[in-house]
């Protein structure tokens, strides 16, 4: 680079004016679906986190004396130890006198935990499978046929048998719901990787003698994240639903644990007289799933490479 004088005979015509483009985060935040879905979901998460301070009592405590109260009743809750607590039953009580509002809020903890944990687990495992299958052609055939096999197992049936075998702990429910999701994630990642590995920048990295693990980590993975995040929201929403279904069928988490599915299962028998037992947890469930899906749609609109391929 010694001959600077010689070089200055070449005039670079193009100015270095970076094209001003809103950052990714700004674009995501300015999307209304993301704002709406994220906002509702945020409120639900906060409510679940701060459940003890939001006018709730022990969600498992029973008071047969105040069974089947209608929503909005003000009364006294007599605990097992005989303490009398004045309480406002915002959403009424079930047949055993458990406070629905408390149970629904604590149930949100379970549902959101299950949703996020399943999404994480399915994404991480699916990502590993998809990356290897997509990048290494030799094992692609075998791995993807195994995935096809997993896909052929009905998800709910699989979860029911797994929980029946190993017991209904939170961990087992999460694993049982996550495993059938893995092939879907793996397929998505594989298809993205298949197109990314043909990109010239990946070839350039090969020409630069970059080790394969580094190519996967630095060049392929960051460019595959966006579709993965979007898929993650859909996995999360479906996991929340499946968990509720399992609980409702009585094959998920133990009946004494406050989950939306369990509350609904409990209220099912007297749905005619006291619909609030099913209605309120149902509203929570629908709202959560809807907000996660709306959030996912918003993320897809802002992150999907199809919409901003050239500009990225």
């Amino acid at each position: 680079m010694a001959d600077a004088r010689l070089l200055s005979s070449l005039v670079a015509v193009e100015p270095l004016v970076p094209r001003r483009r809103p950052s990714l985060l700004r674009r995501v935040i300015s999307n209304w679906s993301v704002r709406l879905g994220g906002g509702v979901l945020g409120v639900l998460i906060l409510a679940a986190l701060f459940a003890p301070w939001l006018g709730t009592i022990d969600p498992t405590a029973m008071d047969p004396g105040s069974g089947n109260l209608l929503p909005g009743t003000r009364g006294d809750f007599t605990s097992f130890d005989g303490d009398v607590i004045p309480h406002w039953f915002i959403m009424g009580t079930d047949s055993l006198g458990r406070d629905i509002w408390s149970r629904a809020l604590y149930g949100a903890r379970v549902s959101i935990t299950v949703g996020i944990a399943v999404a994480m687990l399915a994404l991480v495992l699916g990502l590993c499978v998809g990356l290897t299958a997509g990048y290494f052609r030799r094992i692609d055939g075998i791995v993807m046929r195994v995935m096809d096999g997993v896909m052929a197992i009905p998800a709910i049936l699989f979860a029911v048998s797994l929980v029946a075998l190993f017991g209904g702990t939170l961990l087992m429910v999460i694993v049982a719901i996550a495993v059938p999701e893995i092939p879907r994630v793996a397929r998505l990642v594989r298809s993205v990787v298949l197109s990314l590995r043909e990109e010239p920048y990946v070839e350039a990295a090969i020409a630069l003698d970059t080790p394969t693990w580094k190519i996967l980590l630095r060049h392929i993975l960051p460019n595959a994240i966006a579709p993965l995040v979007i898929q993650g929201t859909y996995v999360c929403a479906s996991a929340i639903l499946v968990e509720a279904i399992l609980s409702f069928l009585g094959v998920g988490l133990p009946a004494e644990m406050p989950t939306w599915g369990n509350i609904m299962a409990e209220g099912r028998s007297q749905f005619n007289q006291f619909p609030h037992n099913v209605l309120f947890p149902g509203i929570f469930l629908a709202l959560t799933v809807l907000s996660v899906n709306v959030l996912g749609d918003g993320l897809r609109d802002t992150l999907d490479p199809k919409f901003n391929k050239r500009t990225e």
Partner: protein
Amino acid sequence: MANEDACGPATPVLSIRNLAISLPYGGDRLNAVQEISFDVLPGKIVCLLGESGSGKSVIANAVMGLLSPGLLPTTGSIRLQGRELIGTPEAELRKLRGPSMAMVFQEPMTALNPVVTCGEQIGEMLSQHVRMGRAARRQATLDIMRRVHLPDPERIYASYPHQLSGGQRQRIVIAIALILKPALLICDEPTTALDVTTQAEILELIRELQTQNNTAVLFITHDFGVVAEIADQVAVLELGHMIEQGDKHEVLTRPRQPYTRMLLDAVPELSLRKRQPLPEADPLLLARKLSKAYATGSWPLGQRLVHALQDASVSVRPRETVGIVGESGSGKSTLARCIARLIEPTSGDIEANGRSVAHLRGRQLSPFRRDVQVIFQDPYRSLNPRQTVGSSIVEGPINFGVPRAQAWSRAEELMGLVRLRPEVLSRYPSEFSGGQRQRISIARALACEPKLLIADEAVSALDVSVQAQILALLEEIQRLTSIGILFITHDLRVASQICDRVIVMHQGRIVEEGLVSDVFFAPREDYTKRLLAAAPGRDFSFARSTEAAQDPVYPKSQHVRVRGATDSKGFTV
């Protein structure tokens, strides 16, 4: 146009007056085009010429009423045969498209419906606009297919687009456009996606049909050769402004505007350039009888071998630029990728540094990788969008064991070499234009201090002015580092300017090989002769400023449009 008196009182088919089309909020300028006024007379071809982003296609789409949502004509008028098109409802416009105006697009494969036979697609135009029987329609379709010189019209009538070659597909698109004998034909880069020999045929066809029907043609292109070949009148666009228009000879030989002159200077000439004789030296790289075959199909139908490359031998010496020219599918990129060892050749040998590298794998290739680097065609895909420019550049040296700090300071030096500021290193590729990205790719390749640089169509996706700068940069780098360059291109003009030796490839084989002066100016093989004859505008002498004529590749600073101020070091701000 300005010279109406010369053309007599003929009424223009298309008349655009003071047209402005605004861009949506947040665009890089207020209007996509503004103050556009020109006429297209019957039987004349008007070329809209401009670099990418100058607004040529926007004008064409505005005439056809095909503007994307968000683009709106704000002022001005577009009159087709005296009828105002701006504000005409969509239903009315639809009746005009076909009988009065028609368009030929750049990429024939996407312009045609892949699941409908070509004959039906041509016939659809008739059934939409003319009442005629089935047999008559078929006859008319076959007639127009004959007129666009399609071989065996009966067979092609029943063929699907994917069964035809690119040139044949473009003929179908032209047949669709011209079957109703429209008064105005708009061609939007109709030959850009085609090979040079096909391009020559298509241009000739457009010329022929246009003369027969006395059609007015609005022809959009960025290629000066094509303009020289086909235009009657030329209008030059710069960033949405029409800066110059007039007769072809006037604009191309006596340009008034500095921008036009700068563009013309940047057009590489198909001419012999004096190059310094190379010192005798051992070749950096020697490829012998390289072949690459791909297997298609499998049991039970049986495998078929497709020979992408057969018995190609290449050698490159230090300081030498070897060009590989050929049309698409000629195997030139396969040869480059074999030599770069991005793919493994089926047979043959590659020798570098006295070591055979043709069949090495993985880590064994490391020393070779350091010596040979590649620059790719598409500047938008050759840099990882999620990595800063700096980490892309230092990646290679760090892989080869250079300490991190040293690699970064070297990257800063390289930014100076490719005429970018060192601050660029912390930015992401999306902030740069195509030309700037190509500079970054060059810096990335040079960071490993390679001995051989393979440029695979490295300037093909760039505008002429940017192309000239990149070529100048490559020559400069070669002068400073005595690197060998293997330059793959389909553009014979570029090859004639930058190469010492050229290799002509056709259907996977090397057809002719030798010094530029021999191959381009005394070709022996028929194919080379045909290729040379097809180069558009080869007999046309463009205006060149005197200094540029001596050294045509370098854009001289007085003709260069400097948008930013230049500081003392020569960096552009």
